[in-house]
């Protein structure tokens, strides 16, 4: 795997704030790399470091094997799709898309031709003469994408590009972006705070917390085998057991998670298991969610359609297969405590 981007101990501090703190990571060529995390976790700063809008306080960033230190943004072969799209309001759509080519000195006919092709790629043919203000949010998003792609970047950076779109459009754009990335083979680095988006789109996902990468790996690994409590809590709605509870339940004083869909609920006294008190239930269509109190810890179960739904206030027996209990061997307890508070 050729390395598209490599972070070597990169930090970016703003005064006392360690926005990015000694991050090491590698993005492979042609990869769809998702950076996931809550706001303020450092993922956007990492993106801006790759683009060159921020300079690292310490460490080095290599882009395709070459140090990017002292390379200004306009000399990097990366392009960005901005969160607010940042389309030039005084230019029409075609000139917006052709901007990078115009700066590169390409003639008007040629660059307009390529811009028109890029607009076709994002399913906006014939929109060239419109002003950005006359477009909908989804259309602006596509123009921003075309404006970046027309320059044939080696790495495309996307800063929460779907954040401003409504749910349906967002899902559609997720599929289109993924398909586009496969078709073009360009490395995508995608920033999002939406775990579903990161897991469904990324070839690999890096979960950020407080300026550091908590875990990086394929979506299945992030989802089913979180290495630290923060990842378990942030990615999806996994049930997290702290070491004290685990010691009482199984005698192993480690953090552990169990997916809600792996939890079964039985009437009190009908089987061996863990007694819990139902606090609320909700109907979700194909399944029902039962939230319980297990010895002071919140336990959520997703029951399939047709299962018996207990009444709130009832005491039930919660069970799960031993294989579904993921024990985080050697999770740092101190860091876990911080994640818990956050």
């Amino acid at each position, binding site marked *: 795997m050729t390395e598209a981007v490599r972070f070597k101990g990169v930090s970016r501090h703003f005064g006392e704030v360690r926005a990015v703190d000694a991050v090491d990571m590698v993005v492979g060529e042609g990869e769809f790399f998702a950076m996931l995390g809550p706001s303020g976790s450092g993922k956007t700063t990492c993106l801006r470091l790759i683009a060159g809008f921020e300079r690292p306080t310490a460490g080095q960033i290599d882009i395709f094997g070459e140090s990017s230190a002292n390379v200004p*943004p*306009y000399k990097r072969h990366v392009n960005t799709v901005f969160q607010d799209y*940042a389309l030039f*309001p005084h230019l029409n759509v075609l000139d917006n898309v052709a901007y990078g080519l115009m700066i590169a000195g390409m003639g008007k006919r040629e660059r307009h031709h390529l811009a028109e092709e890029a607009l076709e790629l994002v399913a906006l043919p014939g929109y060239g003469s419109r002003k950005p*203000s006359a477009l909908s949010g989804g259309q602006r998003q596509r123009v921003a994408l075309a404006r970046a792609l027309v320059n044939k970047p080696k790495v495309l950076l996307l800063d929460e590009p779907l954040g401003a779109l409504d749910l349906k459009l967002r899902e559609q754009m997720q599929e289109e972006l993924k398909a586009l990335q496969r078709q073009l083979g360009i490395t995508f680095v995608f920033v999002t705070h939406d775990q579903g988006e990161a897991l469904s789109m990324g070839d690999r996902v890096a979960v950020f917390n407080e300026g550091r990468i908590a875990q990086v790996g394929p979506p299945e690994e992030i989802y089913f085998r979180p290495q630290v409590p923060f990842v378990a809590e942030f990615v999806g709605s996994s049930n997290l057991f702290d070491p004290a509870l685990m010691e009482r339940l199984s005698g192993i004083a480690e953090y552990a998670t169990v997916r809600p869909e792996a939890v079964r609920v039985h009437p009190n006294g009908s089987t061996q298991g863990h007694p819990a008190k139902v606090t609320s239930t909700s109907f979700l269509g194909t399944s029902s969610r039962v939230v319980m109190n297990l010895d002071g810890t919140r336990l959520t179960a997703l029951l399939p359609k047709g299962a018996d739904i207990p009444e709130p206030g009832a005491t039930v027996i919660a069970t799960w297969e031993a294989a579904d209990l993921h024990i985080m061997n050697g999770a740092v307890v101190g860091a876990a405590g911080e994640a818990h508070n956050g």
Partner: protein
Amino acid sequence: MHSSGAPFWLKAAAIGGLMFMHIPILLIFVYAFTTEDRSYQWPPPGLTLDWFAVTWNRSDVWAALGLSLRVAAISTVIALILGTLCAAAVSRTKFFGRETISLLVILPIALPGIITGISLRSAFNLADIPFSFWTIVLGHATFCVVVVYNNAVARFRRTSGSLVEASMDLGANSFQTFRYVILPNISTALLAGGMLAFALSFDEVIVTTFTAGQQQTLPIWMLEELVRPRQRPVTNVVAMVVVLVTFLPILGAYYLTRGTDTVAGQGK
């Protein structure tokens, strides 16, 4: 409840106020055509166009008008450059003392012109700078910069900062970004600020009396003419020209900045 119209007394008061402000200006225009040249007699005993020809042939009028136009033009150019740079610095970057600088830039227009005038005059004296065309320009630039700065800073604040980053991201260096992104987005604000600055400079009296030597700008020439009555309607003809020269830019500035309340580059 939404009433369909204002009460009669309010309308009358509004019309009265507007007439009080504007009828004297019309009188100035009428006296430009009077046949009586020593005192302002109402009604004018007769009407004539002779004063236009007389004015045309007066070399002192042309000298004053030329000086005023040159001073206004150069002050405006200086104000456009310095005001824009200052606005960019204050709105684009954060630095120690930014608010203080912002205040210091605006101060000359808040200060009474007579203070600006006296202080400049004593400063020129102290530095042994002889009064000239350039001392007038310097005096005018102090308040012209403010007008441009205020217009530009408002537009900078309304222009999304990510536009600059987007331009850099697409390969444009600082100069290209200024040329292709910043300038088109602030141009109407600069034009409006420049027109206002020009109009302010063109009819400035107080600062000019302190910073001019023997030279007369047009407003100063008019003041002198009023004290020495000689071919009085010539002053009125000149007054009409001044009204036109200052009114048109201000009107233009108004139309240019109208309807630009939306934030340029705002995404959603």
